[in-house]
């Protein structure tokens, strides 16, 4: 049976194994694969299976359907092709890597954990926040006085000094431990203070381009970077 692995921000959120002739993809609940994101049309696309071949068909969606980063209206799928719809990546496999007949329903099997649903829900909330703020924001997670901080300056400072924009706590962190530099549409986190005290997603960094949902840690304080649209 063919399998479609659905990823959001590089994390697998669903695996769909299907015996159906036709799998619909879109934002509304009546689709076989429901993708909750602004960039997804209500009835965005479908995959049709016929004699062992699979074709993805775009339903004249607003933001398009892409196969291996090329916009398509109809495309024959080969094994390991990646269909991009909105912020989701759908990996197509001609044969399921992990068949599990126990959770089969209606010919289509969907594995969806609570955690994965939470991921999508968090994204929806974050979209609300950036749209309200009108730009990229830092969300305070732990050990910070900041709840929501809109990053509008060219340079935003983070550290334990009184005069920085975002105060952080922790042993041996510098007054100005890090800065976020806005370069055009991109944001870079640069470590200025002691090495190893500025981390992104758990890794110590010197300078790194921030991606949506990155977790910035400065000392004991942590913040989530949410990129505005």
């Amino acid at each position, binding site marked *: 049976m063919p399998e479609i692995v659905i990823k959001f921000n590089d994390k697998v959120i669903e695996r769909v194994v299907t015996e159906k002739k036709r799998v619909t993809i879109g934002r509304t609940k009546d689709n076989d694969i429901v993708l909750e994101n602004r960039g997804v049309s209500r009835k965005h696309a479908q995959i049709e299976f016929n004699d062992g071949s699979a074709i993805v068909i775009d339903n004249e969606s607003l933001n398009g359907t892409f196969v291996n980063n090329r916009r398509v209206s109809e495309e024959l799928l080969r094994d390991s092709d990646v269909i991009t719809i909105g912020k989701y990546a759908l990996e197509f496999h001609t044969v399921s890597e992990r068949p599990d007949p126990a959770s089969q329903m209606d010919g289509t099997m969907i594995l969806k954990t609570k955690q994965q649903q939470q991921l999508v829900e968090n994204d929806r909330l974050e979209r609300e926040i950036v749209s309200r703020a009108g730009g990229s924001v830092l969300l305070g997670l732990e050990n910070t006085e900041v709840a929501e901080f809109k990053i509008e300056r*060219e*340079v935003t*400072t983070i*550290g334990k*000094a*009184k*005069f920085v924009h975002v105060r952080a706590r922790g042993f041996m962190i*510098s*007054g*100005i*431990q890090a*800065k976020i*530099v806005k370069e055009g549409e991109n944001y870079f986190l*640069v470590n*200025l*203070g*002691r*090495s190893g005290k500025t981390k992104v997603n758990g890794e110590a960094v010197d300078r790194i381009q921030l991606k949506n949902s990155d977790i910035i840690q400065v000392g004991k304080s942590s913040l989530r970077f949410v990129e505005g649209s």
Partner: protein
Amino acid sequence: MRIAVISDVHANLEALTEVTQDIERSNIERVFFLGDAVGYGADPDRCIKLVCDLCEIKLLGNHDYVAMGLESADGFNLMAKESIMWTQKTLKRKSIERLSDFEMEATFLDFYMTHASPEHPWEWNYIFTDLDAQRAFEAFTQTFCLIGHSHIPGIFARRPDGSIEFDSPESLTAQPDHRYIVNVGSVGQPRDGNRDAGYVLVDTETLHFEFRRIPYDLAAAQKKMRKAQLPEFLISRLASGQ
């Protein structure tokens, strides 16, 4: 207690070295630095290291702030911009780390300290006129405010009736009921017509301020600046002290 207050070193290692030796000879307990370790001169890394070894309180100046990439150099004149861009290129990672612990303001006993003006220190405003000083006096509560930034040593005194007077004495003993803004001048690039490195010694018990001027190997500092291809105007102004 006798303290030394230095400011505006501006990467002039020759001047800082002489001042350090003068401080060591002067029976001083504490040394404070009021900002601008870098910019203009050819020895930013070594000056930052020496300031850190020497000083208990270390403040940021606008040149340090721009060198760290925390603000653009758009507010600088062309030559200051050229020298700060050179500094940004040559500054070692360790020096940035050292600067990252410098403060914007500090207090000690009855002294408030910042680089430019107690009124919004991060805006780097100058205190040149009595009116500037009047507004600055409203922005701190201590008797004394110690600053640098303009490279012109001197004292704004506010009398009990609120009137303000500026003077550039060689020394001064504070009078009761007066308040003072003391500009300690510049170690590395004086602009009061005297080319010698300037700083201030303070006796915190007698409240006596002494404006020290120390000759240094100016030619050596200039030679390094030429080698680094820093703007000629910045090199020649060291000799005129303007």
